[in-house]
């Protein structure tokens, strides 16, 4: 399973942070990869609508998540605040991973 995660919007634009995060789940240690798979499953990700019906709130962010899992493949954009707790948890996890990747750079 491969995850691409992109963050857009927010109080200001930082060109350096626009770079998407790519996670190759198969390359992760098993517990981490299982955790991600569980979050994706709980969010029922492959059944989510591609575009949010949520309004564009000032300074709020939009998150685009693309997941390629062999036969299943989907790209979803969500705007915050995210109502669905399971999806919220998935985005929070990806956001944290993006921040860690940034710190490691």
């Amino acid at each position, binding site marked *: 399973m491969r995850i691409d995660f992109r963050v*857009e*919007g*927010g*109080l*200001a*634009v*930082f*060109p*350096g*942070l*626009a770079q998407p995060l790519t996670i190759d789940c198969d390359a992760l240690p098993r517990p981490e990869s299982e955790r991600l798979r569980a979050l994706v499953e709980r969010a029922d990700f492959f059944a989510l609508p591609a575009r949010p019906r949520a*309004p*564009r*709130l*000032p*300074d*709020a*962010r939009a998150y685009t998540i693309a997941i390629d899992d062999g036969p299943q493949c989907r790209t979803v954009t969500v705007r*915050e*605040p*995210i109502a669905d707790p399971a999806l*919220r948890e998935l985005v*929070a996890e990806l*956001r*944290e991973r993006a*921040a860690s990747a*940034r*710190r490691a*750079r």
Partner: protein
Amino acid sequence: MTKAWARHCGCSILPPELLRRIALRGNARQRETALATLATDHTLRLARATYQLLASPQRGLLGVPVAAKRRTVYDAQGHETLPGKVVRTEGARATRDVAVNEAYDGLGATFDFFADAYDRNSIDDEGLPLDATVHYASRYDNAFWNGRQMVFGDGDGDLFNRFTISLDVIAHELAHGVTGDEARLVYLGQAGALNESISDVFGSLVKQYARRQTAAAADWLIGEGLFTARVHGVALRSMKAPGTAFDDPLLGRDPQPSTMAGYVRTSTDNGGVHINSGIPNHAFYLAAIALGGNAWQKAGRIWYETLRDRRLKPTATFRQFARQTVQNAAQLFGATERQAVASAWNEVGIKT
């Protein structure tokens, strides 16, 4: 309806029911005028309306000052459920949580600014209670306005500090509420960049007013203090010199243009709302400097009246907005001010 009428209630050909509503919901001056009108007219009907008002238990009509702050600060405790737990209400003592106190004080400073400078009673001009949530999500480096309240993250601590640290950022979020109540500029493309710019304009003015700074003395920065020491940058944006606020190996370089020559066409950031806002931001800065003195008195007033102007459409372009400010400058002040505002727009590449 009530609001539009209330603004012009100086001319008293209004029916008593309307006057009654103005007296109930208007600001101090409007109420006074409405009550005086009700009281001096000697028709029986009006006299009855007056007595009903005096006896009204609803808002302690004659005693309580109208422009009263009603602040509530909530703590999301690291979660993303809004609004969270109440941690400080109006009049309550400061807590040990600096983010809570900053949010509380920032709401107060913004409320006071709009009340004192423009006689506006809160976000909706009808005394809307002000709500803010702090500690939203985990290591969250953003702040936004959700249509009803402000939401602040703690920052990741690595690049960003807590988002309540800058008064102008708090005021920026509240000003989104004012724009949502008045011009309702769509959050996309040029109208969206105007929406953003208006939040920066009033964000900066709230700070200038709190510091009692003239246009010349102000720093014109938005979000000073938000970055941690490791970031090469002074703030999120600069209205004085858009494009110069930060230049950092991780964050990249401030992408804001200051004139139309640098206008950015993009599909990201809702069509570059936080990028191209640099252009109207700089026009405001130039107008404020040219008009001199305290920026909120002339330049701010002109922008504020334009924001409330019925002729301003939700899909307004930079040029439409600019023309409206030029007209309002002439109407509110005179030919000199009109010229100063037109020159400011001209300098950023917008012909009015």
